Structure formats: C-alpha cells, structure tokens
C-alpha cells in the first residue's frame, strides 16, 4: 500500500500482482517506452536520460546518461549492458522488490539501454541468495522473447537484444562492478584495476554499461514521460524519485519511493511512524557503508545526494537504518565491521588485514578488554584503510567505523570505565 507521501514511479506496479506477467505489464503502459525508443536515435535516448538527471541507484550516484555516453560507439567490439542485481549492502532491500513485482520494467530498461549504447546482449547478475527471483526473471525473459521484446529484430526492427540471468555465489564484493564482471566471466570475484573503466573495457574487455536494477527500471519511465518530467519530480541535480529502504528502530519499516530531497525527519516520523524503543541516536543514511549521522544531523538533512554529502556522508544505495538510544555504538561498529571483514575479497592488504584487526579489537573492547589506546589505534587503522584500497569496499568498512568513533567516542570511553559493555547491563534492566 502506497504511503500518501510517496510518489510511485519505479514502484508504481508493486501492488499489481499481474504486472509480473507480460499481459499485466502491457496493460499498465508496459513496453510503450521501448516502442518509443525503437524509433528514437540512440543519441536522443542518452540525451533524454541526461535531461532526467538520473543518477545511479547502486550507491555511487554517478549520472547515468553521462555513463552511457562514455561507450565508444565506433568500437568494433561487441557492447554489453549488465544489470547489477547483487543487492547485498546491509540496509538495502529495494532491487528485490522491482525484480519480484515489476520484472519487465528492468527488462525494458535494459533493452532501451542496449539500443542507446549499441549493445545486443545483456546480463542480469543476481545475488546468489535471491534464488527465488531468478525464476521470476527467467519467466519474464521467456515471455519477452516470445513477444519479440527480446531477441533478434526487436518488435520487427533491426535492433537485437539478448538477455540472460546469472547468479552470484554469495559475495558482497561481487556487487562492485568490476568484481561483478570478473565473476560474470567465470573468475574469482576480485575487482579490477581502474582505469580502464567498464565503459571502455568491461565484460570480456568490451565496452560495457553496468547499472543498478533501480537505475535501469527508471529508464522506461523517463523515456515514456520525458526526462524533464522525471527531473521535476526531484531536485535539479538528481532528478526524480528514489526508493528508500527504511529499517531499524522505526515502527513502520519498509521500502518507500520518495522524491529526492525529501526530509529525513519526515521519513522517520511521518512515514516510519517514529523511533521505536527509545529516542533517536543515529541514522545510517545510505546503507551500511555510509558514515553515520547523529540525531541532530539526521533530523536536519534532506534525502538527496548533495545534502547528505555536506554532512560527510552519502545517500548511497538508499538504505536508511534508524538507531535508537539504547543501542551500544561499539557493538554497532563491531557488527558492521564483522560484515566487512567477512565480505572483504581479501585481495588487498589494508582491507583484508585492517578489517580483521578492527573486528578483533572491537570484539575485545566490547567484551571489556579494552585499553584506552585502543580507541586511537582503531581510529588510525580505519583511517589507514580509507582511500588506500583497490576497491571501495575498504572505504565502506572504514567510513562507518571512523564516524562512530568520532561521534560516539564517549561510548568507547564508557566501555573502559564500566566493563564489559555498560549499556548492555543498563538496557537489559530497563
């Protein structure tokens, strides 16, 4: 059920059970955008996407139209469209809904991307744990082939677009685009050295566009209704609406589609129904890899790329995690770093060894074995991971840790005084 404050674009068919069938999809404007795109010049499609100011929904927020325009059109090599459906960032759970309730919008978006960049083949790289989605996607793909929305001579034109799914095997790192490409090629999921970027040397060394599910699913709406229309839904530099995954200590967790620039306070209070179990202590603004905001910062910020960036954090993948004041931030830091230590691909030294160091020290610290110098050491270790790794997973591990030590240093001091974790005792009796 849509919340009244939502503007439903990508999620507009989420309540329509028939939308996952071609018939149902066609009945709700499905594939009108593709029909339109088939008559457009590829450059015009890219222009339209540029006009919409659509920015990548996978985490980095890179302008999508610009990314597409980097594909060397004259290159004699085949070109590929790859959809990043590895959605593994803790706090993020939006792509799954698109694939479950509106799979054709992704298929349609990818075909349009294919036309735009001259690609005749696409891959959807789906997180291994999303096995149930594979069936849905594969069924949708089969239907689309039968109806000429995929395959040779799309709808009788001279455009071709083949599409298939591929599953990951349970590695967060395979969501990093170059590691994803390695994995898709059948190798270990380890990031590549960049440059070259996928646009020039991607899958099998060929020009490749790689986009998040939500990004690609936005494309048909943009083509159908115009870039201008999409832009106006949100803010000028980051057009449109965005799925926000609200979780943590709120009464109404869920995925909500909100215009960019929507105030965090309203998200938590009006949509989320307020903080559960205590007062607001912290907010993870964009998935577990983004630096945390304290209550004051969170309540004053608007959910758009630039506003969050001004506070030194990121809108990331749209995973907003609300943390109440009964949460031990040391434990929180430990939990986050546990994830990253486990998910580090292990290729490069600072990430592999640094996350291990941090988890070991945080665990000891939380259990009451902390020493006062540990706080600075952990801070320095995290700083020494930041910006020194091969891919951004290292940063993803370092940034939340750094922000927690900076903003909740007192809680660390408290652990030294009242060991083991002073909060756990206190909260247990509350």
């Amino acid at each position, binding site marked *: 059920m849509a919340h009244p404050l939502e503007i439903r674009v990508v999620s507009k068919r989420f309540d329509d059970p028939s939308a996952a069938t071609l018939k149902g999809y066609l009945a709700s404007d499905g594939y009108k955008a593709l029909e339109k795109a088939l008559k457009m010049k590829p450059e015009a499609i890219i222009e339209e996407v540029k006009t919409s100011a659509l920015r990548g929904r996978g985490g980095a927020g890179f302008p999508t139209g610009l990314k597409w325009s980097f594909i060397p059109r004259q290159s004699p090599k085949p070109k590929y469209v790859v959809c990043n459906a590895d959605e593994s960032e803790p706090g993020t759970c939006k792509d799954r809904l698109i694939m479950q309730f509106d799979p054709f919008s992704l298929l349609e978006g990818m075909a349009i991307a294919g036309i735009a960049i001259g690609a005749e083949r696409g891959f959807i790289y789906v997180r291994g744990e999303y096995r149930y989605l594979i069936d849905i996607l594969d069924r949708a793909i089969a239907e689309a082939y039968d109806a000429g929305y995929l395959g040779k001579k799309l709808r009788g034109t001279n455009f071709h677009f083949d599409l298939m799914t591929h599953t990951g095997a349970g*590695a967060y*790192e395979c969501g990093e685009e170059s590691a994803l490409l*390695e994995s898709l090629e059948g*190798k*270990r999921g*380890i990031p*590549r*050295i960049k440059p070259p970027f996928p646009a020039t*040397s991607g899958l099998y*060394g060929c020009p490749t566009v790689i986009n998040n599910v939500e990004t690609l699913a936005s494309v048909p709406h943009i083509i159908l209704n115009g870039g201008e229309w999409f832009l106006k839904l949100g803010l000028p530099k980051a057009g449109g609406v965005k799925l926000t995954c609200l979780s943590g200590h709120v009464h109404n967790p869920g995925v909500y589609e909100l215009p960019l620039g929507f105030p965090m306070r309203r998200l938590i209070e009006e949509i989320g129904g307020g903080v559960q179990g205590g007062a607001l202590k912290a907010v993870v603004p964009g998935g577990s890899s983004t630096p945390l905001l304290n209550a004051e910062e969170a309540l004053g910020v608007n959910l758009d790329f630039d506003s969050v960036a001004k506070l030194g954090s990121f809108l990331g993948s749209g995973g907003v995690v609300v943390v109440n004041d009964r949460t031990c931030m040391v434990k929180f830091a430990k939990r986050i770093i546990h994830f990253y*230590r*486990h*998910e*580090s*691909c*292990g*290729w*490069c*030294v*600072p990430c*592999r*060894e*640094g*996350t*291990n*160091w941090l988890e*070991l*020290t945080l665990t*000891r610290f939380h259990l009451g074995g902390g020493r006062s*110098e540990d706080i600075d*050491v952990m801070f*320095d*270790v995290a700083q*020494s991971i930041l*910006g*020194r*790794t*091969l891919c951004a997973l290292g940063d993803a591990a370092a940034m939340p840790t750094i922000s927690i030590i900076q903003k909740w240093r007192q809680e660390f001091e408290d652990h030294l005084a009242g060991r083991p974790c002073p909060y756990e005792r206190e909260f247990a009796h509350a």
Partner: protein
Amino acid sequence: MPENNSVHLTIDGRAITVPAGTLLIEACRAVNIEVPCFCYYPNLSVQAACRMCLVEIEKMPKLQTACTVPVAEGMVVRTDTPTVHKARKTTNEFLLTNHPLDCPVCDKGGECELQDMTLTYGTGTGRFDEPKRHRDEQQWSPVVFYDRPRCILCYRCVRVCGEGMDVWALGVGNRAILSTILPNAGDHLECEECGMCIDICPVGALTSGAYRYKTRPWEMKHVGAICTFCGDGCRTTLGVRNDRIIRGDNRDASGINGEFLCIKGRYGFDFTQHAERLKTPLARIDGELKPVSWAQALETVARRWRAIQQQGGRFGVIGSTRALNEESYQLQRLARQVLGTNNIDHHRSADLPTLYDALAGTSATGSAPPLAAAASLKTASAVLLVGGDPTYEHPLLAWNVRWGYRLSGTRLYVLHHREIKLRRQAHRMAVVAEGAEGAAVRYLAGQGGAVAARLSAVGPAEEKRYPQLPPPDPQPISGGLEEFKAELEKESNVVIIFGSELRGDDIRALVALGGRLAGQTRYIGLADHSNSHGAADMGLYPDLLPGYESVSDAAARGRFEALWGARLPAEAGLNQREMAEALDRGELAALYVVGANPLRLDPVNPANLRRSFLVVQDLFLTETAKEADIVLPALAAYEKTGTLTNTCGEVQATRRAAAWPGGKSDLEIIHALARLMGVDFGRPDPDRVFAEIRAHVKGYNVSVVQLAAGRSALAVPLNGAVPHRSAPHLIRSNHDTLFSDGTLGRYSHAINEVMEKRLLLPGQAR
C-alpha cells in the same frame, strides 16, 4: 627515442623523461628513487594488491599505486611526503598483523623482503595485539612447502607459475582474511617443480624441500656457477658452507637466464654429495676394483699406455658433454699429440658441423652472426621450432619463448611429430608423422612434396591485466603445411631452433629454408648437456680439430702442430660407434673415457672389453666405469673454474663453488697424464688454457672482460666449409626431461624424489 614517444614528468622535484607507457614505479627506479613494493614484479601482470607502493600524484585526490599507473605528460609525483611515509608504515604494519614473526627460524631470515621493508619503512613497534591465526605448514611436493601464516598474499607465486611457467599449478582459495595460496590440484602440486614460486616469494612462505632449515643465508658464501645439467647455460647461485653446496637459487638474476631456473639448476646440485660419489681412484686388482692412491693410479695408466704405444696398439678417447671447454680442449690435445690418435668423439646430440658447413655455403654470414643467443628469443619477432621439446629438454629456451609470446608478441611456429607443450604459445603448430620433420622442412624450403600435417593456432597473448588465466587452448585450423608455409614466409628475422630430429641433409634443407626468409635468420641447434656444444667446438670429433677445422687440412693442422711443437695425425679417426665396434673386435687396445658413459649407448660384450685397457674418469661408477681397469674420481663442474658453451654457442665463465677432497679436475688429470707420458702441458690453469683457446680456436676470440663480468659471449666458429663426415645415426639426444639428466640426474636425490612421488596417485603422496 622519438620525442612523441617520451613522457616528461617530475618525481620528487626531479624532471625526468621516460618512454610512454612506462609504469610509474619503473620511472622511479630509473632515477634510483625506491618505491617499496611487494606484489609488483617486473614482467608479470600487475596486481595492486599490497598497497605498499602508494605515492602522491598532484591533482589526484587519493594516494595512487605506482605499480599500476602509467606515466603521463606533466605528472607531478611525490614519494617522500609524510602521507606517503605514513601509508607505508601502516601497510607494513598490516602485513605483520598475522605474521608469525618467526624470523629466527625462517629460511628467509636475512634475505627477506618483509624484513628489509620493515626495517626501512616500518615502525619499531607493532600496535596489533590480538590473537593470530595459526595454520600448519603444508607440503605440496617434495620440493615445495607452504607456510600460510608467513604468506603476505602478493600473488607473485601464482603469476610466475601461470604467466611465466605456463603451468598454472597455483591459485588463491577462500576469501578475506582466510585467503590462501593453494595448489589448483587440491592438496598437492602437479607441476614442473621448477621452484620459481619459491624463489620469487618475498618472504619465507614458500620454502624448498632441498634447503629448508639447513642453514642461515649469511652462513653461506654465494658463488655464481653455470648449471651443469642441460645445455641452456643458466647461472645458478650456489650457497656453500664448509665447501658443500647447500642451496641453488637465482636470487640475483644475473645470468643469461634472468630469474629463471628449472628444478635441475635449482635442486639438482645434491648429486655432488651423493653417497656413491667416488672418493678415491680405483684399480682392477684380481678382477675387482680396489681403492688405490692417485700416484699409483696415474702411474699405472701411463705405464700401460706407454706399453700399448710401443706395441703399436690403437687408442680411443671419449670426451665429456659436461667437462669445461679447457678440459675438452686439452683432452683432444692429449689424444692427438700424446696418444697420437684421432679416435676421439663425444656423445653427439646436435649436428653442429653440418649446420656450420651449411651456413658457410650461404650468404647468411652477413653482418651479424647467424647464431642466436638464448635471450634473443625474448624479443624475436618470430621463432620456428622444429623437433625437440624445449619445455622439458631446454627449460630456459622454453621460458624465453613463452616470454617473447607474452611480452613481445613473438609469433611461434612449431613443426613437430608430437603435440608438445609449446603449442600453447604457437601462432602455428604443425604436427607431422614421427620422422617426417625432415621431409616437412624440405617442403617448407620449396624442395619437396607436401607432407600431411595437422595444424593448430593460438591467438596473440592477452593484454597484461589482472587476473590472468591460462591462455585458451590452441584451435585446430585447416590448410595443412601450405598454410604454415605461407604464414611463415611473411616473417623476417626468424630464429630457428631445431632438435636432434634434424641431422645431416635435413639441416642443409633447414638452412635453405632459413635463407628464403626475409631479414636475417639465426639458428639454435639443441644439444643435450651443459657443454655438449663446447665439446663439439673444442674438436671432440675424429675428423675435426677445435673450431671445426679438418684434421686433414694441412694448414689448420700445421697451426696446432706449430703451437704444440708436435706432429698430429692427419687421418680421420674412429667415431664413438666405430670405437665400440673396434673394442668388440678386440682392435682397440686402450680406451680413455672422460666424463661419459659410452657403453650405455653402444654396449660392448664385457668379455671383449676385458681385452683392452679401459680408463674411466667420472664422478660415479657408471655402467662404463664398472668395466674399467682404472677409475679416476673427477670433480663436478661446480667444483671447477673455467668456461662452458651453451646450446646457443654462448660462452660463459663458471666458478668453483665447492670442493671434493678425493677428486681431481679433468684438467689436472689430463695434465698429469700428459706429463707422465712425457709431454708438458704446463700448469693446469684454466685461464692459461682459455687464453690458448681464444687465440687458436675459431670463433673463440671472445672478450674475457665480458666473461669475467658474468656475461655471455657468442662464439661463432664460422668461416668456410666444414669437411665433416656427417653421421646422422650418431646424433642421439638423451631426450632428458625436467626430472632426468644423464648420469648426474640419476644421482640427485631431489630430482629422484620428485620422480618417485610422481609414480604415486594424486593425493597418495607423502
């Protein structure tokens, strides 16, 4: 360097100019600015894994890895800032977090890159105070042991095995902090046991079964010797303690082999300490070989030889394919001048006289010599390989050919009767029927009809990006030998390598083929052992003097006669096979065998053998030595100083590393016997003998300075025809493998252990 190919940049305030495409780390090295690194290794794919090489580049927000960033015009780089120093410190500290710090017992202690880096760039104390993860050491093969806690995951081993060796035996397993290097076969290696992975490991994570826990590096002296096994002439740095060799490796990479060594060069040295090594001379007394003194043994030999001479008995001499040039040279002098015979030969594996004769008849002797040094394979635009199997028989040449393919775009053409491993780098591989190589060469040279061939091809090497995978399998292609020929004829400046499959007239056809190709064609004839080529050059032939001059050429003979003040026999003598036949008929009164085992190749009825006087000089009691009247314990090449000539014709100096108290060098023995026979060869000083060789042997006037500096010098004994009685049936390659090498290989524990373990099923080992 044309201006547009150069890039100007500033590093630490110094303006420098380097070729475009240079990696920043190499640009720094070029001006002696050290950028610490672990995962970077020249000529292997880049990894960006260790993050030790981070530097500041102006206009870039983050520190950048100097090992992956190519230089750019106007780039301003700083390697000496507080941020960079801090980054190095913490990266180094990260590497030590799970490191066991067991330096006091680690093989690598004292020459460990992690130790050195920690000393230079690390902190005095570590802040990591958490439990470390222990994992037991694993043995992957008789040669290779792995200690995970010491491993810093630089992936050098994986790359050198895959990209360098084309073996791909190693991989990375698990992820995150549990990442580990592991054999792709599971718990053991199925590989060439080259030990490259061990040598390239910057720390003590990979250790060798031959060396582990034996000594500390600073307790050894390190001597650069030339490997005594195959004909490629790799330098092996021998670690010696108390006159015994403890280790062979190649860490200074100063030889013609660069960083390369195969199992034999690295671990085969242990034959020198084999329990069965001869310690004293032996004489047959009452039918049995019994220890005698050197004086007794040598005097017996001289006395019997004199008696045979007086009775007019015939002598035969078989020389060695491993003795040094000086020794072979003096041996033929002994045969010709002292014993008065041209019955001298050696185990031939390459028909070099025919090659040189054929080359003399062409214009190939243009400006540059038509012989190719091993290193030229690394940069050749095209290589044609006919016969032979360099991967197993000439591992360095194979390494260089792969290098060329991988880094220089060399197009390799292989003509063979088997699908040899180098097909994986072959631009064109033609498989013909066994024995049809010669006919195929004639066809390629336009001299004969078509020969049926199966063709396959591999595309050019991938660009150097991570991660590297095994190259795709060669794909069958159509067209047969015609296509091969058409493709080959597009090439110029081809290096041709040929095995013992080609001999006699086949080689003439090969040279005709080479003459048809554009540019300058150069040749490498594959010869088995460390000095097979030198033995040929030094005149261990019944009809050839040193430098391929005919014994019946009065002028050439006259030069040596004048030099030695003696008459030399002018008639060609018996070859090895003919000497064996003469022995069998009782027509050879004495046979002197120096470092050879001729009875293995040409068996003689033992009863007939007893009728002649047999002297054998060797390290071990070989099949031939067992039949001898006198056995003289000789020194191994690693115990001698002198020169060797590799299969390409490159002369190199080798230095005495170890000692063997009971033995004498072949040179000493030859000189002593000559003196006892009444001819003074002078002091057995290899330098003096080499001076004579330089002055009198065609092609050997090479620079001693160059040799002394540890470099090789190509000897080109070419001018004029070589009137040689070609005997194709005598060209008999041992076809040694990585795990065998004539007599010596049989006495190397390290090599044998690998062979024994190979007989076991996978997983059954150890």
